[in-house]
């Protein structure tokens, strides 16, 4: 065991994992988190907490994870390198570990030009791969980047992201391999709508034997409407939403598009489960947490295991 987190235990035991996602509020109101957590509790094994996603200022990921821990859920702290230099990053990891957080997802983060502070200065002292290396060095060597010994080593279960749909496609698996080499224990992918392309990517992953070195959790997001699907296709960087998916939503009877979206999602999960090397699902029900129990139920993934 590297960290002993619940997520690590489930994956280690070979069971199919589900992680959820919780976007913190744009303010200090903890009830928002508590409400979202109600829908996730018992339905997912760990909950990712985003770190000022799309560069919009929100409650910190660490604090939100701590609140989730208090409620009996396991958090996965997302950390982007956009806003902190290596000093702040390592300091936050110490703090997070002390608060009981055991999973971290290492990201570079969306550019600040997308958010509500486009005039801010970015940091990017490290990139995501270097962040993985840093967390691993802290855990395995017990040293900070600068080389000093750590007193009270943070043993994190290290996650990284992968986007099979970004370009250049043939390099995506190489970059995954770099993340694995840097020390990633698990991977969460970008939302998958183009399953054929994802399958091709997984084939390349297996060719390199990466599926045996890292746990891959396939990302899924239920679509609420045609509008949302089109937005994801056109506006969200690195997203691949095939026209068939949009047509299917469009073809749904009036008022039933959301239902169709759930069906698409459940079918995707079932298909993803069949792919060799997929160890779990990362279910991102963006501002639609109440549907998580339904999706998990329909996908036949209940009840969730409770490792000791």
């Amino acid at each position: 065991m590297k960290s002993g987190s619940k997520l690590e235990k489930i994956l280690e035991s070979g069971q199919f994992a589900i992680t959820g996602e919780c976007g913190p509020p744009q303010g200090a109101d903890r009830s928002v988190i508590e409400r979202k957590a109600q829908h996730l509790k018992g339905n997912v094994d760990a909950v990712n907490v985003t770190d000022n996603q799309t560069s919009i200022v929100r409650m910190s990921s660490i604090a939100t994870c701590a609140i989730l821990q208090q409620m009996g859920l396991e958090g996965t702290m997302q950390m982007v390198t956009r806003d902190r230099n290596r000093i702040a990053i390592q300091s936050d990891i110490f703090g997070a570990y002390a608060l009981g957080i055991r999973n971290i997802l290492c990201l570079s983060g969306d550019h600040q030009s997308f958010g509500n502070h486009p005039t801010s200065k970015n940091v990017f002292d490290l990139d995501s791969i270097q962040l993985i290396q840093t967390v691993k060095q802290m855990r395995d060597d017990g040293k900070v980047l600068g080389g000093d010994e750590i007193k009270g080593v943070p043993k994190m279960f290290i996650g990284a992201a992968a986007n099979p749909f970004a370009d250049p496609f043939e390099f995506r698996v190489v970059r995954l391999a770099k993340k694995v080499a840097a020390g990633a224990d698990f991977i969460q992918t970008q939302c998958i709508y183009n399953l054929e392309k994802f399958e091709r990517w997984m084939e390349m992953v297996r060719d390199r034997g990466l599926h045996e070195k890292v746990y891959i959790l396939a990302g899924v997001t239920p679509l609420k409407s045609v509008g949302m699907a089109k937005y994801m296709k056109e506006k969200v960087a690195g997203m691949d939403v095939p026209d068939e998916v949009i047509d299917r939503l469009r073809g749904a009877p009036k008022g039933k598009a959301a239902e169709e979206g759930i069906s698409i999602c459940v079918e995707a999960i079932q298909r993803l489960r069949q792919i060799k090397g997929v160890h779990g699902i990362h279910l991102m029900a963006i501002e639609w947490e109440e549907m998580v129990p339904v999706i998990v139920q329909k996908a036949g993934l209940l009840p969730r295991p409770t490792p000791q």
Partner: protein
Amino acid sequence: MIVGERKSLEEIRKMINGYKKVLVAGCGTCVTVCFAGGEKEVATIASALRLAAQKGGDAVEISEATIQRQCDIEFIQELKEKVEQADAVLSMGCGAGVQTIAETFGGKPVLPALNTRFIGRTEEQGIWSERCAACGDCILHLTGGICPIARCSKSILNGPCGGSKDGKCEIKSEVDCAWQLIYDRLKSLGQLDLLEKIIPVKDWSASRDGGPRKQVREDMKL
């Protein structure tokens, strides 16, 4: 070269407000090449300032002078007489030029007419783009001669990130993804193996993050 861009006339007028005699000082090096602060731009902005002043009924006297390089004190000395006659100097040089004039003529206010933007190249007549971030620790040999620090929006050293699509950056569709360029270039060089290695955490102390930089060549000192 250093690429600069003229500030708006409004901003410049606010800066010179209150001064009766203003010397517009051009620089004959980088900013001449990028049409921001050469002799013609100096004459143009001087004329525009006079017109604006006349229109507003202000009395301001504008003089002009362009020197070879504003970052060398010997050239700046050529301005001495005109500077003495002026109440303020509006420099059309880069930030280095503005400061060298200010350091040379202690008692005279020196105002920047340009925004100094980047170290870049002429892509084609009328188009300049950033190429170097002056990080002080060049790694272009690892990245096919394309700088990820200056040209990747996130300056990441192990790219491309998940926002690279069709060769473009996620922040703007007209911005090339530097890492796609690096990938293509290394592919054509047969050096894709370079991308299998992780570029380690960068030593930023050589860059501006290490504090103001200074370079000394002992043998060249007189």
